[in-house]
């Protein structure tokens, strides 16, 4: 990633979108919209002082909404380029309110609220489409109750919880527990404020609020307006403190998630959604279970699936190692339903096809191995670039030319073509690069490509 930023032959156009493609193989003119970042790319040093001072918190898309970022942000800590970006939908200044704190704190003077989108035109010989995929939205499967049961998460959300650079710095804190902790923080803030007000009153009248309140309730200060106000403030303080104490007591019992259920084929191999196999999800779940066990050796994981598809170099061995050394149990069967038990624990109901029995089991967290869905933007992009899509909206290719689109000079690689894992994406990317290079260097690019 770092190499892309500094390679002399690569011009990186981030935060940009392709709007128009004209011409034909060997001679294509591309129009690219460079969206306004409101930060000058050549001045921003990526120091991050602006994000520390920005008053607007927004759910962080990189962390799948499990953490917050600011209205001025770097997409993620090691992101290339390190240039920060202002989110125009969230920024107070850009929405017409008074702010501009980032501009005041930026020592490089990189903030420019007047920046506009720029249109650039590029002439190229060929195009490689590598737009990737979208994570399938599991709330389309009502019986899994994603979003209804807080401790049911997607594999990519779980990945962010496992990551040392994620919102929990790698601790497997359950989303329901994190919600309680956020509530505690909110109430503590309120309590500190009301405590401050009470402190002033206590100093003025020379007694503690509790002592005063007892006397007040006994009817000692009737008609005293000042003390009436004090009583109201004290009552408001208690209405914060009582739930706060309750929540704190609850939070004492919180531990990291140790009983994990992974559900395979969520959206894939399902005729209601995608009939195809997404390929990488079996190994993804095995990996997440192994890493979770590395973090917390008491972790026990159950992977529910029709079968575990460990097709790839070293994959089967990895699956077996997970079972032998990382407390993973593989259960053959599809999960019928997830319900919520006590303490926000998800309860999984499934058919164990080996024992031919319907069973239920309680877990701390459930992870959904979501399908690799075609990316939403690809329909529009296919029209712009002029290529055909297949019945699912992946880029159409043929078995003997797996990186050639239906239009000469336009190539495809990675999950834009079909679901695939990292090693396959890399191999296909090198293949697409080679096909594109043929056009860039050969004198007659319109020549037909020979296939085996």
């Amino acid at each position, binding site marked *: 990633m770092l190499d892309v930023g500094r390679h002399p032959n690569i011009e*990186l156009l981030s935060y940009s979108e392709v709007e128009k493609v004209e011409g034909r193989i060997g001679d294509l003119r591309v129009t690219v919209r460079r969206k306004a970042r409101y930060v000058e790319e050549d001045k921003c040093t990526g120091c991050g002082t602006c994000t520390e001072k920005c008053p607007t918190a927004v759910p962080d898309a990189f962390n799948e909404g499990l953490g917050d970022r600011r209205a001025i942000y770097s997409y993620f800590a090691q992101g290339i380029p390190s240039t920060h970006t202002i989110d125009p939908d969230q920024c107070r200044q850009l929405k017409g309110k008074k702010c501009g704190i980032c501009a005041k704190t930026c020592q490089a003077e990189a903030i420019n609220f007047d920046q506009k989108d720029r249109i650039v035109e590029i002439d190229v010989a060929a195009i490689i489409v590598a737009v990737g995929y979208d994570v399938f939205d599991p709330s389309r499967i009502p019986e899994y109750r994603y979003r209804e049961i807080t401790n049911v998460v997607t594999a990519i959300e779980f990945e962010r919880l496992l990551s040392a650079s994620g919102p929990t710095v790698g601790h497997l804190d359950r989303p329901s527990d994190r919600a309680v902790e956020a509530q505690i923080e909110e109430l503590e803030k309120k309590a500190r404020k009301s405590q401050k007000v009470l402190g002033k009153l206590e100093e003025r009248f020379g007694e503690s609020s509790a002592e005063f309140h007892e006397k007040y309730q006994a009817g000692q200060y009737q008609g005293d307006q000042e003390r009436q106000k004090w009583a109201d403030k004290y009552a408001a303080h208690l209405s914060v403190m009582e739930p706060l104490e309750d929540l704190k007591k609850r939070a004492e019992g919180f531990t990291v998630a140790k009983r994990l259920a992974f559900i395979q084929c969520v959206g894939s191999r399902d005729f209601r959604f995608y009939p195809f196999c997404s390929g990488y999800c079996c190994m993804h779940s095995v990996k997440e279970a192994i890493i979770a066990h590395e973090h917390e050796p008491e972790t026990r994981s159950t992977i529910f699936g029709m079968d575990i598809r460990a097709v790839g170099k070293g994959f089967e061995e990895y699956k077996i190692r997970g079972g032998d050394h990382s407390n993973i149990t593989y259960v053959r069967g599809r999960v019928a339903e997830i319900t919520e038990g006590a303490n926000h624990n998800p309860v999984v109901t499934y058919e164990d096809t080996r024992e031919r029995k319907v069973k239920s089991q309680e877990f701390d967290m459930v992870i959904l191995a979501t399908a690799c869905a075609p990316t939403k933007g690809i329909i529009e992009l296919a029209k712009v670039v002029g290529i055909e899509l297949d019945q699912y909206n992946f880029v159409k290719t043929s078995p003997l030319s797996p990186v050639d689109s239906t239009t000469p000079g336009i190539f495809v690689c990675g999950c834009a073509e079909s679901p695939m894992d990292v090693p396959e994406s890399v191999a296909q990317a090198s293949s697409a690069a080679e096909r594109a290079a043929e056009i860039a260097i050969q004198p007659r690019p319109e020549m037909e490509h020979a296939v085996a």
Partner: protein
Amino acid sequence: MNKEILIIGGGIAGIQSALDLADMGIKVHLVEKLPSIGGKMAQLDKTFPTNDCAI
């Protein structure tokens, strides 16, 4: 005659294509919709089957 290549998407596939072409001495323009490149793989903690760091 143009000798340059456009790549749309800065995930692992786009990055690999860009580096391969650039190393061949071909000028590449890499377009990414989001503020930073890296794509889904940058969101991953580790990769199977070696548990290597994804970034």
